[in-house]
């Protein structure tokens, strides 16, 4: 490059900005919606031996959680960009509480520390927080 570290860094950041800008302009900024089909499909791939029972789909489409049919585990499914990711936990192993009409879970995962789901009403949020707390 130029031999000047700061100038090289500036040029490099400029290059990154150009590429990011072009991808944005080409319509690559996308957010997945966590609906039933998408959540089930992702969960089936990530955790094929998890048998979901009751589901809560966040009303903003950002996440969902399923309690297993045996009532021992939960699986969170959340969106990241245009993809989905999952976290499978034992019921009671993560701290869950209701915050208004939201269910807030502290997953304590290094890359996904916490998660909120819009339950639709404070009553539903309380009910789900109770169920997920085991």
């Amino acid at each position: 490059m130029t031999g000047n570290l700061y100038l090289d860094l500036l040029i490099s950041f400029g290059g990154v900005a150009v590429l990011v800008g072009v991808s944005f302009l080409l319509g690559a900024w996308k957010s997945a919606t966590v609906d039933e089909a998408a959540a089930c499909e992702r969960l089936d791939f990530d955790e094929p031996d998890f048998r979901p029972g009751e589901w809560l789909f966040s009303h903003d489409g950002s996440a969902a959680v399923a309690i297993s049919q045996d009532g021992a585990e939960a699986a969170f499914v959340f969106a990241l960009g245009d993809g989905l990711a999952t976290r499978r936990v034992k019921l009671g192993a993560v701290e869950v509480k209701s915050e208004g009409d939201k269910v807030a879970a502290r997953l304590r995962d290094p890359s996904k520390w916490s998660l909120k789901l819009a339950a639709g009403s404070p009553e539903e949020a309380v009910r789900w927080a109770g169920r997920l707390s085991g």
Partner: protein
Amino acid sequence: MDMTFPDVVTLAVPGFVLLVLIEMAVWRVTRRGRYETRDSAASLLMGLGSQIAPLFGGGALVFAVYVWAYQYRLFDIPNTWWAVVLAFVVDDFRYYWWHRISHERRWFWASHIVHHSSQHYNLTTALRQTWTGQIIGSLLFKTPLVFLGFHPAMLIFVGGLNLIYQFWIHTEQIGRMGPLEWIFNTPSHHRVHHATNPRYLDANYAGALIIWDRMFGTFVPERDDEKPRYGIIKNLGTFNPFVISFHEWFGIARDVKNAKSAREAFGYMFGAPGWSPDGSRLTSKMIKDRWNRMRGEGATASADPPPALQPAE
């Protein structure tokens, strides 16, 4: 003897940028493959960071060790074209083992996981490189080649060529490449390597030459009936480059802190990724075994839908 080589990686950067732009344009037209702006931004920033990281002393340390080792070389390998070709092949062999261990031992995986952490597979993914661990890898695996007699500058040069080679194979825009697939690592082979489908796990560690995988039993071909799904077993929940870079190290530190014995701590650090003393987490071998088991059950059972697709009660 004169051992001066160009800094090929730096020279290649404009080519990287151009190819990314071309791939984006092709993706926009064909809609083959996937691009996501924040994912690409994270990958590009990881790539930039990986170039800055060695400036904090690691690069100089590695070179100093090479220079020291070169004094005790077994052979005087000259600066000729055939020596460069030989160095490339030997270094590619070195890369295969370094890469394989980077997948099989968590200490090394904590660094390499960065490169696999995108759910996308495009040319920006190639630039999603680690900020940690290259130093250990270089010292452990390249120093023997210096002792053998390859000049450090030549090894850095061929290492750069290998890195450039590996850039263009990170794409879904190129299908299969005929007879080249027998010898070289190709986009098809490397898509398998980045896939998390149980069938594709722990396969195709090659850098430039796929022959190493064929020789050591880790080759798996891409199948038309099973599209690779990219990422890691537990996909990340962030685009933050710092979290991407250090999350697995954080995980190791937390596991070691909670370990009940030195043996457990050792297992968390140097066992297979996913190892746990009680088997409550899954290594890739366990995932493959589970997949084989479920596949076997599926073959004999009725045509039930997969568990997660069954209706909720």
